């Protein structure tokens, strides 16, 4: 029996599969002060038979929150002499707003006085040019321990090439203080670029004790309730890893929630025979957009959290500040802006009646008639339309309230369409052959309009779109990424060296340590390649044992042409990193239940405002649409956690799977 639990800002969602394979859902309020409590509450609430659980997959914002609020461990950093300020100097550029004389750099996650320099040096080819001064190093470590540092990051120059000095320091620290957590850059992030590697290693050390403590408590709580299976943790690459690995790899947990949603979207697309998707996940403060050609989500090798670059494999995602709580304003030039400022969950949109007075997207949806005050959240939450109107009356633009609301919704759709173009057109992908998969509280309400803007003709609204991220945990594969810097010209010899060093064997060893038998998992290998002289690389996934430099070059150049529109056939190609990915498919059989169809009488016709026009739309419960049945737009389909808009010229059909397929006529 498998379970997935996702902790969100407001709600904790639990999904599990009973012995018939049918999904059961539980939703309880989150408990921010004692995060793990909500998981136990959800387990109790859904009456999960914990003794029968074989896999308990969990997604949590614990690592992200610890970093953003800078409430991590008291962390120290050991670095090469001369380079104490790698983090403070950072990239030395100005991101976000170049026209300012008052720039603020990202806050370092380590106190400058706990950054200690160690005499040693390795050069760019990995040769030791100065031996490690162990005596002096011991004094520096002692200084950190004396000052209450409990987690130490070690990041030395060129350690991605030769990590011996880091390993020696690690042994030294552990000999002096066995309970101190130690992280080496050559293990956490063995890639070149000292700033990014240092930040990644330091952030890992900073959040890892928090993560370990959290997992220990959760694990204990579940064990006490009889759960004997291993806890699994969601990562930003869209796969899960065993909880015991999370401490050493805490950065892999950053921003994992949206990745779980994308993973679920591919699962729903597959069961409807859909191959190429773009996902659109709209929550309260923002919308996440990702692309998965052939149902393989595109990945990137770096995340940005609170302006800090974190090197870890993550799904390629564009986030726009367009959520239900996003606030509409008029700027000094007279143009409408929506977001990124958000009313969040508290006070929330004006119509929530929790004290919010600013006009938000949810208020606009209500005024435009897309939401019905008494049907929101299955009638469990009453929306205050008068408060929404008052908020929109304060927006200083001409026109009726409904026109203003319509303008706000058009602007949001425009912003989302821009995000869709960023993950598709800007990556060399034509979105028009793709299906948009919409979920999250607000996704299904905007998806068809966004699809229309970018020329997409098909939208899939999966079963129960409000809990898609939690569902992603349930069906996620085990997926662990490995990387090792190479920085060599691409030749027969270097390719042979990469094969000999063999990250695939590392995957096998790791799989064996998890007790996985050969054949029960897959290993993919890849190389990050660039033209010698370029600063950025492209990842090429190939079977290393069976490829040649010529074949790799061809694949690389095809990708380069797709991205940048040209190739340079006379220039040498360089291997920057070798990569490997261990995947163990989750073969879980899942049936999503469908509610009974209720009498047709529940359908009503009401006016909505859409793109400046007032039209009469059919309002009905989503569950009223029978398998295979089609309804023509304009229509609004309501269900407890979301609302789906079917615009004029679109139809919605309930597929055999129970998912909803919107199609443009």
């Amino acid at each position: 029996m498998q379970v997935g639990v996702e902790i969100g800002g407001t709600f904790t969602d639990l999904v599990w599969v009973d012995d018939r394979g049918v999904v059961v859902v539980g939703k309880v309020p989150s408990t921010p002060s004692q995060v793990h409590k909500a998981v136990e509450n959800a387990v109790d609430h859904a009456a999960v038979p914990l003794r029968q659980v074989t896999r308990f997959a969990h997604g949590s914002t614990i690592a992200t929150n610890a970093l953003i609020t800078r409430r991590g461990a008291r962390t120290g950093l050991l670095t090469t002499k001369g380079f104490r300020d790698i983090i403070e100097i950072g990239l030395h550029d100005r991101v976000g707003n170049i026209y300012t004389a008052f720039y603020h750099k990202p806050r370092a996650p380590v106190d400058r006085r706990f950054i200690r320099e160690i005499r040693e040096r390795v050069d760019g080819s990995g040769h030791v040019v100065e031996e490690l001064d162990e005596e002096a190093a011991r004094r520096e470590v002692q200084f950190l321990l004396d000052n209450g540092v409990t987690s130490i990051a070690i990041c030395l120059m060129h350690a991605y090439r030769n990590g011996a000095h880091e390993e020696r320091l690690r042994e030294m620290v552990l000999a002096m203080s066995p309970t101190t957590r130690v992280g080496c850059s050559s293990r956490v992030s063995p890639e070149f670029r000292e700033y990014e590697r240092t930040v990644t290693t330091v952030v890992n050390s900073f959040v890892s004790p928090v993560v370990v403590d959290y997992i220990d408590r959760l694990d204990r709580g579940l064990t006490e309730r009889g759960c004997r299976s291993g806890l699994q943790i969601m990562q930003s690459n869209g796969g899960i890893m065993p909880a015991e690995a999370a401490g050493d790899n805490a950065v892999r947990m950053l921003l994992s929630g949206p990745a779980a949603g994308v993973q679920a979207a591919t699962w729903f697309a597959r069961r409807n025979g859909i191959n190429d998707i773009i996902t659109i996940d709209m929550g309260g403060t923002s919308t996440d957009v990702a692309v998965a050609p052939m149902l393989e989500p595109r990945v990137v090798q770096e995340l940005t959290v609170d302006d800090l670059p974190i090197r870890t494999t993550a799904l390629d995602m564009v986030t726009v500040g367009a959520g239900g709580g996003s606030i509409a304003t008029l700027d000094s030039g007279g143009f409408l802006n929506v977001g990124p400022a958000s009313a969040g969950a508290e006070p929330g949109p004006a119509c929530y009646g929790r004290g919010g007075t600013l006009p938000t997207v949810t208020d606009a949806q209500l005024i435009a008639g897309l939401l019905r005050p008494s049907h929101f959240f299955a009638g469990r939450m009453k929306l205050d339309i008068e408060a929404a109107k008052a908020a929109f009356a304060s927006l200083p633009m001409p026109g009726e309230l409904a026109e203003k609301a319509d303008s706000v919704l058009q602007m949001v759709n425009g912003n989302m369409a821009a995000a869709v173009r960023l993950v598709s057109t800007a990556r060399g992908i034509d979105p028009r052959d793709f299906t948009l998969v919409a979920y999250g509280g607000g996704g299904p309400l905007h998806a068809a309009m966004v699809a229309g803007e970018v020329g997409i003709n098909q939208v899939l609204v999966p079963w129960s779109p409000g809990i898609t991220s939690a569902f992603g945990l349930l069906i996620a594969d085990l997926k662990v990424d490995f990387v090792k810097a190479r920085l060599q010209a691409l030749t027969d010899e270097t390719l042979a060296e990469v094969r000999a060093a063999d990250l695939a064997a590392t995957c096998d060893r790791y799989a064996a340590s998890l007790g996985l038998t050969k054949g029960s998992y897959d290993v993919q290998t890849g190389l990050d390649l660039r033209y010698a002289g370029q600063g950025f690389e492209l990842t090429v996934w190939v079977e290393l044992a069976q490829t040649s430099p010529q074949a790799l070059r061809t694949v690389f150049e095809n990708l380069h042409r797709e991205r940048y529109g040209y190739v340079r056939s006379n220039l040498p190609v360089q291997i920057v990193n070798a990569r490997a990915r261990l995947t163990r498919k989750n073969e879980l059989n899942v049936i999503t239940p469908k509610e009974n169809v209720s009498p047709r009488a529940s359908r009503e016709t009401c006016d909505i405002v859409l793109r400046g026009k007032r039209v009469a739309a059919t309002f009905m419960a989503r569950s009223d649409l029978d398998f295979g049945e089609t309804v023509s737009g304009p229509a609004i389909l309501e269900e407890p956690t979301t609302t789906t808009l079917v615009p004029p010229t679109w139809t919605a059909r309930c597929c055999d799977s129970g998912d909803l397929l919107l199609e443009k006529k």
Partner: protein
Amino acid sequence: MSADQTKLAILANAIRAIANEMGAILVRSAFSTIVREARDCSTAILDAHGNVVSQAEMIPIHNGGLSEAFRASVAQLDLTTIGPTSAILLNDPYAGGQHLNDFIIFQPVFAENVLIGWVGNTAHHLDVGGGGAGINIDAAELLQEGIVIPPLLIDVERDLFGGAIDRLIFANVRTPDIGRGDFYAQVAANRTGIERLQDLAKRHGRDLVVHAMAETLDYTERRMRAAIATIPNGTWTGEACIDADVRGDVPLKVVATVTVADGTMVLDFTGTAPEVRSMFNSSKSSSLAAAISAVRCLLADKDIPANDACNRLIDIRLPEGTIVNPRRGRPVRARIAVSYRVLDAIHEALGQAVPDRVPAQGFNSTTGLYLVQERPNGGTRIYADVLGGGYGGAPQYDGAHALAGVLSSSRNTPIESIEQIHPHIRMLRYALVQDSCGAGKWRGGLGFARAIQVLEDNVVLSYYSEHFRYPPRGKAGGRDAARASLKVIRGDEVIDLPTTALMTLQKGDIVQLTVGGGAGWGDPAERLAELVERDLEQGLITPEFARAHYAHAFKSARVA
């Protein structure tokens, strides 16, 4: 704002996204560290008349420069016969360019055979020939700084990618592989811009896109006017100077008289020093960009789009024959030094109008440092560094440490990357410099130091920097910042070099560059004791510095 206005606002966003996407392509596919890391490049969408409608946020000194270049090109070329494969190419600083290193390329955008606009970009090329690799500090005339490309109407398919123009230009360049890499990345960025703009016209109609371009400019003007209107009417004068030029030994002054009248401005540079026979002249385009950026970076509204409408309300008067508008033929390679003083002089003037909104002087300089090695087997290795310094303090703001200057946004090249590409040098240190900030109620940011050891013979050092003599000045009682320096350490010998110099190094020499911090704002005696304590704890200042400037903090029990 009607529904149509919403449509226009959405289109304006889409046009801005196209400029940004062009920028991303240029940076990610470029070859030189100057473009890919320092991002010394800009991409833009222009309307059919050549007004920049949207420019990617990459580097302020290019602000407005592209339309200057476009106007000068129109004056010199017959554009009646242009087609889809036409392009305008130039680098002439006396035709709207900034210095010869900046190659500018415009390409027209046609929708259904009608010209709807242009895309364009500029990128700094590592080497453009001339009398020195990367930089020729001895140049007395423009021709000695490299190949001059006047505005040329070319055909991309015929003349580039191995065509006549391509071959001519890169036969005059020391690092042709890197140069071509960047050049083709420029063309790739334009191609993307053209496709996206055509697609936009197809989806929304040609006329609406053209209309949106015009409306974007008007909209920007409204925002700019509203922002300037927060400054009271009046006239104020400010000045600032660079240490000296290559040949002279006297400071060179920039004088700005700023007049604000109901949301409009006049910036008059009468009184500025005459042009010089060295690379320190600021070309007209650079001076204009610096002046506009100086105003923009003080405005509370930070999201005003970057386009030509920002300039409509600012009348900038640059007397010909001065260091802010030299006459044709003068060298301009290190134009950024004087461009920064244009900014400082404007800030000095506006500091009298809105003292709380103007920071103390930051290091406000770019240090360009080159280590060049002729390889025995031919070819040249050029190591180039583009560095900033500390920022000035301001009310509620302690200056940022070690950051690209306000006219720049250069990213530093990873040391691990430098040592991979240049095995003949080793970085010994890259660190903040204690006490280099100016003290104040709000202190400046720290400067930083780089120490580079050369591991082989035949390496030539050439560089320009600033504030070796005159420090960044404090405001409202804040103290000046520390000055910059460059020393070459040869065994026991320490060789002190001036603001700009050329020197042949020996194996084992250590080049130690120290750039300055930012100055302080307000009386140091008013700095909160806990802030002093924190600076001490973090090692940003020494106890001696603290006692000298913040004696009051020692009276409280918290500081030992």
